[in-house]
């Protein structure tokens, strides 16, 4: 088991290196730091001195890969590549380009609010969608099932933005039930969490329920279900003891991969509801064209996704006894 885990983690390293090289190429090879400086400072009438100053303040005035002017190990470390790419592995993200704040501190501070929204959505959503899908599967091939599927298809054909806009308009503006946006410290935040969580639950309903229903239906077509029926088990017992437990394997392993990424929050939700999480941090960075923050978030996102992949492998082995560690 431990050896298996170690091998999976080792396999993650080259992928992280690849992500790192890719982002580096994207940010520093496609465009020179001069181009970025000109973009940040405004296109017209930028003096070369202003560009030099901008680059010096952010450490972009050094050689990209190899600093021939430095001595000893600094030849390799006193470069853009080392400072802005290699250091990401130690989660040293440096300072934001727009306001000069430390990115790592900011990320730690903003993880909480992101998680406060994403975690309830994840847990309640999983329970609700699985129950609804199970209900549809129970009444499979009847009008009820048909209506449920139609509901799902229509729900998933509506852009998520409309759920947010509609929710804010109806619940907050017309009915005055919850604050339209904002966030508070500590437990007082619950009032601000209600609407985003509810909207996210409704927005995710169609696609997930439909997918879970398919899993249930696929599972119900298997031979062991026929055997269970042939033994005279009641429909409820077949569904809950056999189908549900087996269908949970693909469902669980399918959702485990997103658990670490819950920290990142949702870009659109957080910016619409004014939640000071990582999603709105990213959006602000995109709008301010803060390349350092976007670069850090790309790396962090990949790390979390890869952690999710490792967890998925683990969860497979935990919930499905048929799988052996090779």
């Amino acid at each position, binding site marked *: 088991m431990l050896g298996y885990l170690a091998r999976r983690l080792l396999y993650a390293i080259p992928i992280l290196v690849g992500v790192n090289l890719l982002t580096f190429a994207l940010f520093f090879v496609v465009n020179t730091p001069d181009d970025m400086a000109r973009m940040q400072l405004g296109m017209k009438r930028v003096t070369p001195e202003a560009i030099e100053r901008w680059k010096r303040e952010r450490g972009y005035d050094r050689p990209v890969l190899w600093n021939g002017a430095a001595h000893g190990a600094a030849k390799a470390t006193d470069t853009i590549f080392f400072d802005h790419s290699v250091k990401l592995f130690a989660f040293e993200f440096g300072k934001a380009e727009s306001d000069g704040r430390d990115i790592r501190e900011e990320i730690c501070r903003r993880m909480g609010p992101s998680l406060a929204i994403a975690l309830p959505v994840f847990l309640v959503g999983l329970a609700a969608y699985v129950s609804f899908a199970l209900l549809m599967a129970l009444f499979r091939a009847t009008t009820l099932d048909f209506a449920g599927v139609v509901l799902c298809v229509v729900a998933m054909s509506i852009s998520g933005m409309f759920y947010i*806009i509609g929710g804010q308009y109806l619940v907050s503006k017309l009915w005055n039930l919850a604050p339209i946006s904002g966030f508070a410290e500590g437990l007082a935040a619950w009032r601000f969490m209600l609407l985003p969580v509810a909207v996210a639950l409704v927005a995710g309903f169609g696609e997930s329920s439909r997918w879970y229903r398919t899993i249930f239906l696929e599972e119900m077509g298997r031979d062991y279900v026929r055997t269970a029926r042939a033994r005279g088990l009641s429909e409820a017992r077949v569904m809950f003891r056999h189908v549900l437990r087996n269908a949970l394997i693909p469902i669980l392993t399918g959702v485990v991969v997103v658990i670490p990424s819950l920290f990142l929050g949702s870009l659109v939700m957080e910016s619409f509801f004014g939640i000071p999480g990582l999603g709105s941090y990213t959006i602000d960075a995109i709008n301010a064209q803060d390349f350092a923050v976007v670069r850090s978030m790309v790396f962090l996102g990949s790390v979390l996704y890869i952690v999710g992949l490792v967890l998925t492998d683990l969860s497979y082995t935990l919930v499905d006894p048929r799988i052996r560690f090779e």
Partner: protein
Amino acid sequence: MMPILPVILWTDALVFALLGCVAAFVWLTVSREHLRAPWRKVARSTSGMVAATVLACFVAVGLLDCLHYRKALLPEPGKAEQRWSPEVLSALDALAAPLRQRQERTFSAPFAVHGHSKESITRPDGTMAREYPRLKHGGAHLQDPARERGADIAAGASRGAAAAALAWVMLASLLTGVVAAARGSSFAAVSGAAWRGELDVPLRAVLLTAAVILLVAGPLIVLSGRYHVFGTDKVGQDVLYLTLKSIRTGLVIGTVTTLVMLPFALALGLMAGYFKGWVDDIIQYLYTTLSSIPGVLLIAAAVLMMQVYMDARPETFDSVTRRADFRLLFLCVILGVTSWTGLCRLLRGETLKLRELEFVQAARAFGLGPWRILARHVLPNVLHIVIISTVLGFSSLVLAEAVLSYVGVGVDPAMNSFGTMINAARLELAREPVVWWSLGAAFGCMLLLVLAANLFADAVRDALDPRVRADFLRASPWRQLAARTRPATKASS
């Protein structure tokens, strides 16, 4: 008739290339019975054909908007050379010229004759007053709007409906005639069977859908000449025009993205599955790395970098249209980069299975080279996966565009799209009284497009997915209904 200079933008060229691919595919399919069979199944699905009818209307509007040209300018006296207007227009712009040109000053409600907010107006007698100003174009032909407007709208609507009815009769006889000719039976027999719903193709449902579309479109077209049927936005542009222009953007993103990523996904997926070994390792590493970067973040990073690139080269991207078009193309490419990994993984898995099958082994035993085996024997057997994932991916790409435009990494702000429409309109809900029509138009149009795409995709998947359906669905009297709406399976979604 003024001379025009045809302009082919990059995305136009790709759309035409895509049309060429579709035409080639249709030509290939029509002549082979085993390829035709699944599509016949699609043609028999009611929801699929209704969705296809709706989609056809969207595609028609989108294609009209792909035929770009520049108008000729009047030659300066003394100079012989022909000069062209810098403005790039499309065939849709030409058809909807009244919509494009009749711009108001600011917001106005659908069918309004007065502006949405009060303004200070100098009366003819010189006094100042705060009142709702008359619109420059909307209902400008009415003398006494309060009394005449209702009757005028009703008259226009009935004229449009009459024209629509005429168009429907022509369409219905054309379609019935085609079906009758194809089966060698008489026109009367086919139309009777269609009306009673006894035909195996859902002709009745298609014609009913067409009737609904025509009955909505006819009055809208007639009335849009005199009113702003969907209202106007903040700068006074007709919302109907903006909605029509947004359709092309959505369609381009939904289809060109697939066209861009298809060669990579196909080549790499087939190679990884067929050659195995180190080729497989490298390709797997490549797509695991790419797919481990969260899609939105990768797109955001790439689009930011592209902006820097374009800003550093102002001479290449001189006009607004060219900039917007390049950005749209780039968005398609980067969306393709983030989405090819899923298809590549599917194709690799399928090829791994296929390479062990007897017919591939026989081909190998006959001494065929690997490339020939891949092209002649493996590729045709994975095409259904490509088609299924293409049609399934379309709707999610259209939806993704709206989100990306909101985040600020979508299409150029100068380009009409559902995302930019929603973005501009969402703040206006806070206005009193509420400005709902821009949002409503974007919502309705997007829902229709995505819903039709989803239903069509389901029909195509059901027909092309070779996996046998579970037994209990076949035994049920609701089989037809349930089978038609079978949802996404894990492997194909």
